[in-house]
């Protein structure tokens, strides 16, 4: 495996793990399902995504 490929793999993994890739996924989906309406800007999307956690807490184990 080349270093470049390894870097790409690590970057992909971290983006998926941290949820950084969520906006890209949202845009894809939005284009597919509502092609006529404008998508949320990133700031608004991330804001809603984080604020949702306010009402949906997830437990962390010991």
């Amino acid at each position: 495996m080349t270093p470049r490929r390894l870097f790409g793999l690590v970057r992909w993994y971290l983006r998926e793990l941290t949820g950084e890739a969520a906006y890209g996924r949202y845009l894809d989906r939005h284009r597919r399902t509502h092609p006529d309406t404008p998508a949320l800007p990133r700031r608004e999307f991330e804001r809603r995504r984080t604020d949702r956690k306010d009402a949906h807490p997830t437990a962390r184990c010991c």
Partner: protein
Amino acid sequence: MTAPETTRTRPSWRTVLVWTAISIAAAAGWGVIALVRGEEISAFWLVIAALGSYAIGYRFYARFIADKVLRVDDTRATPAERLDDDVDFQPTDRRVLLGHHFAAIAGAGPLVGPVLAAQMGYLPGTMWIIIGAIFAGAVQDMVVLFISMRRNGKSLGQLARDEIGPIGGAAALVGVFSIMIIILAVLALVVVNALAASPWGTFSIAMTIPIALLMGFYLRTIRPGRVIETSLIGVALLVLAIVAGGWVQASSWADAFTLSPQTLVFCLVVYGFVAAVLPVWMLLAPRDYLSTFMKIGTIALLAVGVLIVAPALQADAVSDFALNGMGPVFSGELFPFVFITIACGALSGFHALIASGTTPKMIQKESQVRMIGYGAMLMESFVAVMALIAACILDPGLYYAMNAPAGVLGTTVESASTAVANLGFTISPQDLQAAADAVGEESLVARTGGAPTLAVGMSEILSSVFGGDGLKAFWYHFAIMFEALFILTTVDAGTRVGRFMLQDTLGNVWKPIGRVSWKPGIWITSALVVAAWGYFLYAGVNDPLGGINQLFPLFGIANQLLAAIALTIATTVLVKSGRLKWAWVTAAPLAWVAVVTLTASWQKVFSDDPRIGFFAQRERYAEALEQGEVLAPAKDLGQMQTVVTNSTVDGVLAAFFALLVVLIIANAAWICWRALRSAEPPPSTEAPYVESRLLVTAGRATGTDESQEERP
């Protein structure tokens, strides 16, 4: 479309050869750690035994459970596929989901329990961690994950209600809530013991709050969504905070950060309340990112360290305390108390809450429950093995000088040295002081709770790979920081979850309090949850007999009883779905954990030995108190009263937990019996079959942001 693997091909000779080699390696590892006596063995053998056993367990036992017992079906659409809403339900790459799940289940538990259990020697702990994970812990996680997945991601409480009935459901809910309170209190106690009178540690941990706030604002306003970048900044600041802690300790500010345990309790309670009522973007979310990064990084670092250094184990294989039950760290004999002390890492009921939370809603294919449920638990078990190694490479004299209660050791290195000699080990006052100086601490005497001991062990290992003796103090405080960070993340997330459970329950009685947006309701319920764990934390800190010694068994019992509840639900589901033949897969670990925890609870409630039985202890101190006597280690009548109160509360709780579980098991047994007697099988509680249209490429990631699956 993936076809289910129905055809069984003859294994190739290479496969046979590889698995034979793995089996021989694992057997050799077990042989060395179990049979070699009288000379020091290398930690390398523990690692070999663990990894070899995990490989065999994962390849054979977990696959058997997936294929024969659960009958996973990759043609069946998972809830992530059927209900995909890109929010709760979304098919997630299995490696990513493994990361999520592992970060959610693994925390300070597998690091603390094994350290305390090292009192019994390295052999019992190692055996329980490895065998327990393979046959109990990982099985529980995988089966609960599967059951919840087949039911659209229902929570453990809902599963209990649906599968066992309203009584079982209510008992499970009460159990989950009270167990969570105890777990939060004990974990917070570990932090208090690690930070008390340590300005370096206290400063570094205190700094995590402004760092998290900064990250929160950065993510919210400057760079929305750039989590990796923000986390890297956070980690850099965190390392800076650890280094700066050393400067603070040497400066005139040291006094301001030298806090008593009582003050720390106050700080933690206030912090817990504030964290539970603030919006998550400010504090909770950034802390969680930081904690996940630190967790994965530090565990990888420790694994590399253990493999490179392969340190020799200094502890006995089986100590005298295992047989006579007179150990200073926690009382009681090997059975049942090793199995109580090590919960996380071998079998942890709390995992059932995670496995019935967000994870089941994100699985792409049913067969992945093996990698995510079983595999993540094996990883946690390995973390526990490493923690055990870190504790067992320490000189036993130092180990007991750090882990026996303050009431036994006194406060000076001289008194501690004498007390350790009375326990049958040696450490000179000079060596004890030198050990403290090496890690930049005032004193290491009676630093109970496991975290400081693990930190000393980790600093030994890591400094011999990275940086030498000069970096020992840094690595020690790095380890303290990493544990405290985990624990505080668990505490604030747990407080929030507890608050929601309380709001939900109280909302049935009085509507407004159930509303998640009504501020006074949030404040009241948060305060109640914080007060509940704060009470036990405060009691633990002030207990003359040592809070860890008193409360840790309760923590283990609570966690294992939650496991009993989860395994009961799993067994009931297997029986009700016509799989009585395979029910032993969960019934056997259930029987074991029920025997262990009920024996432990029984001893904690009814033992005549005041060191073990809470009520015997209460009686002894209450009688003395009536006569106006003061019994060591209590120093005055006020402390006598404290012992009496604490042992009463702890005893009642131990009895209460045991009763809850007996109730749930009895209720489930009745349901199973009725299901077996009835002519027709009970109606299925699974979501109906829908054919999967999701194509999962089983190859490597492409390294781009393209989604991993495509729709045909």
